[in-house]
C-alpha cells in the first residue's frame, strides 16, 4: 500500500471545498448551503459505511452479507422509483428489476470465478451493479414518460388500428431501453481513452500493477453492460403497461 491519505491530509484537502464554495459565493449561484450539506453528508455517510464495512468484513457472515446486499438493492430501487413521475407500481418494478439484474450479474461473475462470495467482494460489487442499474432504470422511466407524451398521437393511431399494447408501444420501448443503456455503452467506448474509471484508478492508486487493474476494469465493463441491459429491459417491459387502463386505452 502506498496510500498516504490520513485525517490530516483530508483536513487539508477540505481546502478544495473552500474553492468550490468561493466560486459559488462569487458567482451568486445560491448553492452554498447545498454544497455544505453535501460535504457534511458525504463525510458522515462515508465514515459510517467505512466502519460498518470494516466490521462486516471482519464478521464475514453469509446472512449479514445478504442483508446488506438487499438493503443496497432496496435503496437503489427506491431511488429509481423517484424518477418514475407517477408510473404505477414503479417501486416493486424497480426493486425487482434491480434485484434480478444484480443477481444474474453476480451469479455469472461467481460462476466464472471472477469474484468469491465474501463480503469484501460481494458488497462493493453489488453496490456498483445496483447503482448502475438504478441510473439506467431512472433514465428509462424518464424516457417512457416523455415518449408517451410526445408520441401520444402515434400510439393512439396504432391502438385504433387494432395493435396490442406491445405493438403500440414498441418504438417507445426500444427507445427507452436504448436510453437506459446509452451511458454504459458510451463509457465502455471511452474507457481508458477519456476516463480511467473508479475501480481501476483505485487499484492503481493502491499500488496494484496497471495490467492487473485493467482486467478488473474489463470485468466491471462487462458486468455493467449486463446489469444495465437486464435492468432496462425488465423495467421498461413491466412499466409500459401502466400507461394504459384495463380496457387497453391510453391513459390521459
Amino acid at each position, binding site marked *: 500500500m502506498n496510500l498516504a491519505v490520513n485525517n490530516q491530509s483530508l483536513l487539508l484537502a477540505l481546502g478544495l471545498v473552500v474553492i468550490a464554495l468561493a466560486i459559488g459565493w462569487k458567482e451568486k449561484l445560491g448553492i452554498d448551503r447545498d454544497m455544505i450539506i453535501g460535504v457534511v453528508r458525504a463525510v458522515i455517510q462515508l465514515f459510517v459505511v467505512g466502519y460498518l464495512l470494516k466490521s462486516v468484513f471482519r464478521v464475514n457472515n453469509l446472512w449479514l452479507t445478504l442483508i446488506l446486499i438487499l438493503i443496497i438493492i432496496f435503496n437503489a430501487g427506491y431511488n429509481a422509483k423517484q424518477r418514475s413521475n407517477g408510473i404505477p407500481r414503479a417501486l416493486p418494478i424497480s426493486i425487482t428489476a434491480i434485484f434480478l439484474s444484480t443477481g444474474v450479474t453476480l451469479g455469472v461473475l461467481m460462476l466464472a470465478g471472477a469474484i468469491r462470495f465474501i463480503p469484501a467482494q460481494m458488497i462493493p460489487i453489488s453496490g456498483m451493479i445496483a447503482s448502475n442499474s438504478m441510473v439506467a432504470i431512472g433514465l428509462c422511466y424518464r424516457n417512457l414518460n416523455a415518449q408517451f407524451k410526445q408520441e401520444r398521437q*402515434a400510439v*393512439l*393511431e396504432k*391502438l*385504433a388500428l*387494432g*395493435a396490442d399494447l406491445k405493438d403500440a408501444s414498441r418504438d417507445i420501448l426500444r427507445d427507452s431501453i436504448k436510453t437506459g443503456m446509452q451511458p454504459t455503452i458510451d463509457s465502455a467506448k471511452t474507457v481508458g481513452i477519456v476516463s480511467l474509471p473508479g475501480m481501476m484508478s483505485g487499484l492503481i492508486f493502491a499500488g496494484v500493477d496497471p495490467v492487473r487493474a485493467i482486467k478488473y476494469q474489463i470485468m466491471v465493463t462487462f458486468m455493467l453492460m449486463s446489469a444495465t441491459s437486464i435492468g432496462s429491459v425488465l423495467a421498461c417491459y413491466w412499466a409500459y403497461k401502466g400507461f394504459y387502463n384495463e*380496457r*387497453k*386505452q391510453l391513459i390521459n
Partner: protein
Amino acid sequence: MSLLELHHVGYRVGDTPILQDVNLKIDKQEWVTIAGPSGSGKSTLVRIIASLLSKTSGELQFAGQPIESYDPIAYRRRVSYAFQQPTLFGETVADNLAFPYQIRQAPFDQQRAVTALEYVGLGEADLTKHVTDLSGGQRQRIALLRNVMIYPEVLILDEVTAGLDAENKTFVWNMIQHFNQDDHLTIIAITHDQSEIESAKRLVTIENGQIVGGVQ
C-alpha cells in the same frame, strides 16, 4: 338488431359532462354523418364507439353484445378509427400498409397493397417512397388505406377531409363510397364540410354533448 346501438350513453370528466344521454342505432352498411359545432362532443362520441375511450354511463352494444364483452384489441380490428391528421409510421409507404399485417402476425399482401395504391391514384413505385416525401393529401390516402388493408366492419372517419384540397377530397370521398357500397363497410363520418353535410345519407347533429338532430 342494429350493428351498433347506444343507449343513454354519457361521458364525463370529473364533474364536467361531455356527452349526455346519447341514443343512436346504426345498421350494417349504413353511412352516418355526424355534424355539430367544435367542442360539442363529436370526437368523444366516436372515440367511445372505437373503444379508445370508455363511456361513463349508459350502454353500447356491437352486434348485440355489450362492448365490454369484447377484447378491445379484437374489437378495434372490427371497428376502425381514422384520424384527422394522421401520423405515418416507420419510413416508407410500405411500412404503413404492412402495419395491419404485422400486428396480426400475418404475411404482408403486397399485391393487395399495390391494388389499393392504384385505386387511390398511386402505384407500386410509391411503396418505397419515404413518408416525408408525401403531400398532405397523399398522407391521408395512405393512412386511410392502412385502416382498410384488412377490412374492418365499421370505419370511423374523424374529419379526414378537413384541410384537403378539392381534388384530394374527391379522391378520399370516392374511396369511402367504394368501401361503403362495394365492400359493405359501415361508415361513421364526422364532418364540418357543408357539402358533405348536405349530401349526407343520414345526418346526426350534436350540440353540447347531446344529439339534437337526426333520426336516432
